[in-house]
């Protein structure tokens, strides 16, 4: 099973509640598509060290939790490891012991491959990648004398994303940069959005909706009291 994990590194745009739900469910053998393979529970406060403790969400879980729990078979990502030598994140540990595979590509190609899945495009030629390891084993073709690499759509079974508000149709708005949350919406068989609030139909205006509800199959409202331990049964 392949899962898109939305967000970009911040506790405020990571679908933490859904990540914890995947941990609770215990499903194994996942291929996780995520721009970063995360830091895990132990190192999560290193993500935003500037954040005053009282503002630090106690329910912050990222995809590294899946690595910690041995739920991953593979990661498709742009940040596979930490940049520091003194912090070893869970996915890096799993990589080192050979229990997971990894595909590393650039963030633009990752985003475009996911967008292609949403948009029904099978593959595209991007100028980014030729001359680097990313192009190995892929078709390279010149357009206007510039080499381009063929990248294919990246579908998933589920897309787990984080938004701010939803209405009954699944229309979404986001708060702040929309990151991979907007990109992944609709790029999976089932898109699940974790939101702060569901508002009455009509509250979200037609010119202000970021993700149309047709891309969203399920909406989950985050608990008003954060669940700080993923092992707590719900």
């Amino acid at each position, binding site marked *: 099973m392949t899962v898109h994990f939305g967000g*970009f*590194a*911040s*506790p*405020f*745009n990571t679908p933490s509640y859904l990540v914890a739900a995947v941990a609770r469910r215990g499903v194994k053998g996942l291929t996780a598509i995520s*721009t970063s393979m995360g830091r895990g529970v132990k190192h999560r406060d290193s*993500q*935003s060290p*500037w*954040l*005053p403790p009282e*503002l630090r969400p106690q329910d912050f879980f990222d995809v590294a939790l899946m690595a910690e729990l041995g739920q991953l078979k593979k990661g498709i990502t*742009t*940040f*596979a*490891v930490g*940049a520091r*030598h003194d912090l070893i994140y869970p996915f*890096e540990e799993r*990589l*080192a012991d050979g229990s997971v595979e*990894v595909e*590393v*590509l*650039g*963030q*633009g*190609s990752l*985003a*475009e491959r*996911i*967008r292609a899945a949403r948009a029904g495009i099978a593959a595209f030629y*991007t*100028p*980014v*990648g*030729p*001359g*680097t*390891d*990313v192009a190995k084993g892929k078709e390279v073709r010149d357009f206007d004398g510039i080499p381009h690499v063929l990248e294919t759509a990246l579908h998933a079974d589920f897309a787990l994303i984080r938004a701010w508000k939803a209405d009954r149709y699944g229309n979404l708005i*986001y*708060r*702040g*940069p*929309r*990151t*991979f*949350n*907007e*990109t992944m919406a609709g790029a999976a068989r089932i898109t699940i959005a974790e939101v702060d609030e569901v508002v009455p139909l009509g509250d979200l205006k037609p010119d202000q909706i*970021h993700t149309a509800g047709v891309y969203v199959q399920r909406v989950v409202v985050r608990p008003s009291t954060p669940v700080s331990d993923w092992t707590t049964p719900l």
Partner: protein
Amino acid sequence: MSVPSNRNEPERLHPTVMAMVVARDFEDGFVVNLGVGLPLECANAMPPGREILLHSELGLLGFGPVIGDHTKADPYVTMVGNLPVEALPGMVFLSHDESFAMIRGKHLDVCVLGGLQVDVEGNLANTQFEGKPAGNLGGAPDLAYGAKQTVVMMHHTTTDGTPKVVTRCTLPLTAPRCVSRLVTDVGVFDIRGGQIILRECAPGWTPEQIQGITEARLVIPNDIREVRLM
């Protein structure tokens, strides 16, 4: 962030100063992306009197400096590196796919990237950290290709003194033939036509001293200056 100086060498430029040197060349109206690591210092070094639109690949365009008093920060408005930044009028939020459409489609003027190695062809390696089982590409490959100019901002040598400005990158490439300007903690360089040209030296540094910690052969023109901040 800082490299311990060899006892015998002049003082190296502080990252804050390097950032000013990089940012002084941003023209009014430029759209500029700052990569993770050292380049983020530039967010707080914008040249006064010029409007520069900062782009961050998670979907943020037109933001201001990093906020020092974190209790006043909006935690939803962060640039890459997850640092809180000031919201400026005219700021725009984007998705990741649109953010990279903007990058790849050549709508950015400059990107500033960190580097592990830069070579005479302008090849950039900044993905594979030593001893790590995999690399980190992040947004660098798209930025290096898509921005009209790619500037690398990095320490001139590794912490153990190994040269990072080389004849040919030995680490896996992030992007080929992309770097045209290099700012390190000892000088400013142009890269073109297979040559690295020394333009400015950090105070106290001679071209010979800079060549001494550089693996690549530098071109040293007559009109070399001391590093300018403006």
